């Protein structure tokens, strides 16, 4: 008799279906129905407390509900890397070292972490971020990659490649002789990819996380600081809107809303709690390629 398999609705991985309560690859619960808004956003199911995510010979256990902890039990041959300040605790036997990154000056200038830290098994090491929210596990299949907004990365397994790129979403304002450049998405984004082997990437979403797929040519406007991740095939561009009834002069464009326009094909994910991005509202001088709409 053929063995039945379970295909996770979130990560699409198939596993033997015996006595599963959560997906062994990404931790998504198997016994809850999909929560999809009428507008098409799929609510990321919270990983059940104490669920285990398997990778290589190791696994990661998700603990807690408000500010979940990712507790890795690393086998001797497995490693993870992580942003410097997310380490919660570790066993003394876990070996920790620095992973050098290219473009140090640029990263320093952009406020991104200069050092990624890697931990080699055997032993336990655990991570958490400093805001209520959800751990978002993203299993990466060979040849796939995702782009992640800066400072949302928690940890990735050693098989996952790390790179970063310029977002090219910016605008400049001018006040007298002072010119200021603003980056609503941050100057850079992280890119994580799997080469020959699958890997596991963990992000932290502040609040709740929602995902949707965009068809080719379909676009949506998103608050820049709410963007969590996107497929590399999804394009992005600055978009500005000016409400009607606001005062404008030759010096000022008046009130404006800043958006990032995301256009498919591919997945995008957002978080419901986001930072406020300060727009001084002063005279616009130059922008990256952008669209503008005046109501």
């Amino acid at each position, binding site marked *: 008799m053929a063995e039945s398999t379970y295909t996770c609705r979130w990560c699409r991985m198939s596993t033997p279906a015996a006595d599963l309560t959560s997906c062994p690859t990404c931790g998504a619960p198997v016994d809850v129905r999909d929560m999809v808004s009428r507008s098409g956003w799929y609510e990321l199911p919270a990983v059940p*407390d*104490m669920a*285990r995510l398997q990778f290589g010979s190791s696994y990661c*256990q998700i*603990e*807690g*509900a*408000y*500010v*979940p*902890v990712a*507790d890795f*039990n690393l086998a001797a041959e497995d490693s993870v890397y992580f942003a*410097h*300040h997310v*380490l*919660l*605790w*570790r*066993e*003394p036997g876990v070996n*920790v*070292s*620095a992973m*050098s*990154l290219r473009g*140090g000056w640029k990263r*320093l200038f952009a406020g991104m972490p*200069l*050092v990624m*830290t890697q931990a080699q098994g055997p032993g*336990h090491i*655990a991570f*958490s*971020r*400093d*805001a*209520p929210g959800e751990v978002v596990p993203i299993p990466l299949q060979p040849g796939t990659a995702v782009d992640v907004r800066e400072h949302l990365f928690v940890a990735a397994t050693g098989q996952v490649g790390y790179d970063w790129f310029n977002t090219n979403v910016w605008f400049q304002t001018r006040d007298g002789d002072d010119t200021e450049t603003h980056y609503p998405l941050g100057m850079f984004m992280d890119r994580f990819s799997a080469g020959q082997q699958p890997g596991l990437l963990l992000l932290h979403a502040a609040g709740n996380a929602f995902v949707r797929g965009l068809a080719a040519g379909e676009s949506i406007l998103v608050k820049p600081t709410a963007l969590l991740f996107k497929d590399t095939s999804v394009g992005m561009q600055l978009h500005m809107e000016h409400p009607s009834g606001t005062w404008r002069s030759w010096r000022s464009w008046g009130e404006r809303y800043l958006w990032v326009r995301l256009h498919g094909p591919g997945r995008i994910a957002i978080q419901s709690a986001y930072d406020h991005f300060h727009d001084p509202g002063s005279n616009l001088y130059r922008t990256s390629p952008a669209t503008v709409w005046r109501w």
Partner: protein
Amino acid sequence: METAQRIECQWCRSQNLSTARTCDTCGAPLDVRNLVSDSGWREAPRLRDMTEFHFGQSTCQVEGEIVPVAEIALAQGDWVYFEHHVMLWKDESVAMSVMPLKGGVKRAFAGMPFIVSLAQGPGRIAFSRDATGELVVLPIHPGQELDVREHAFLVASHSIGYSYVRIQGLKNILFSGQGMFMDRFLAGDEQGLLFLHGYGNVFERVLQAGESVLVEPGAFLYKDASVTMTVETQKLTTGLFGGQGMNLARMTGPGRLGIQSMYVHHHTD
């Protein structure tokens, strides 16, 4: 003769009637299994909304789940003490006074509360902190001593003695993320109840004698006085840029250790 069956609370070890759903001493649910990670951390019990439990002649009710409130109905003659800024509301009848503290100048210098307030029954008074987290109810048994990171303390019953300990060693003071002092709570001849607020989720682990674990200093919440703490710095170098230092607190048993998952990250150069 029929013997009354009892259930032992797995969190505070108090005995409860077999019909109880929550512990009468600490409020922990008695009908759910413990959540223990494979690495040995036990999640602090998540107190059910509107759970009631008792100390002295008074009753405490826990309200809410995301930022829980500890509402205490103080009986005549019972009193509690707390940090100045955690009081949410109170009945007019609840009398207020302050607890005299020794070392006031040192405390003010170290950023610890200069005044610890007292509230005396009868009447109701409620407490909460200002962030998502969990209420951690810790009965302190006679002779026990517990060290708590500063500003994690919410409220304590009158039978618990309050003191503070200076953190030993300049490196520990500078890099442990605790400041210069920790609160110390101790029970004399009578059991008392201590309430902490942990940011995010709270986990507890019992360390054996000589066993140690390295913890982000900002995540430390409480420990038995028998657990020692020393800060270790690991330099992470990346050639031209010099790298960064990583400070971790080595906590060594024997005793309990509590941590919080949403922590203050302390800057390292």
